[in-house]
């Protein structure tokens, strides 16, 4: 299982290549790339996201989520790479990938990874744009998505 806290621009193609290179005997690889949106939930323009992190707990949260996804779905490889620091709108913010023998486990693991990351990864995010800046927190829909996994 690989979990990385990345303070430089994230390259999804490179991360997918790393995941593919680790697979042996797997028949499925599913990946997700999250991108910093240029618009807030209320329609205001967003120029950048600041992802503040904890020096220890943030990476630990990524590692814990990756391990729990692997155990839950019996997949062979998980790769989570998450940005921290300042991320301009339009740039990748997270890569989550899973490899397994069969496709269903890989799809489920990637879905689970993102639902957990969206609500439990230890980041404090602030959107900044022409209208100012605001701290953002998960929505009720984000919590509901996470809770459906029980």
């Amino acid at each position, binding site marked *: 299982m690989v979990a990385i806290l990345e303070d430089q621009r994230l390259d999804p193609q490179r991360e997918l290549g790393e995941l593919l290179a680790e697979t042996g005997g797997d028949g499925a690889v599913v990946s997700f790339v999250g991108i910093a949106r240029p618009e807030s939930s209320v329609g205001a323009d967003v120029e950048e996201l600041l992802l503040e992190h904890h020096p220890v707990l943030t990476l630990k949260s990524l590692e814990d989520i990756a391990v729990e996804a692997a155990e839950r779905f019996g997949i062979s490889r998980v790769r989570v790479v998450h940005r921290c620091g300042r991320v301009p709108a339009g740039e990748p*913010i997270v890569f989550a990938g899973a490899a397994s023998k069969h496709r269903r486990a890989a799809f489920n693991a990637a879905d689970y990874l993102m639902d957990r990351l969206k*609500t439990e*990864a230890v980041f*404090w995010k602030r959107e900044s744009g022409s209208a100012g800046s605001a*701290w953002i927190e998960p929505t009720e829909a984000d919590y509901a998505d996470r809770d459906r996994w029980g």
Partner: protein
Amino acid sequence: MKVLFYGRLAESIATEVEVDALPGSSVAQLRDRLIAIYPQAEQPLRNVRSRACVGDTLVHDDYVPEVAETVEFLPPVSGG
């Protein structure tokens, strides 16, 4: 006692402060003391999703930190 803050708590208080806390004070009592000093931070400090952390381990409200320990208050996380 050294206290660290993150996110909106750091913005409304500071990233780090020294607080006079009575020996034997719990995390809950430390939180009350902080709210008395920084009333503008009451809402995020009392949020049910806010957590306290000592030595990189999350602790409950009844935890009693040593005076030499650093307590970190984490506002609700944003997620990734």
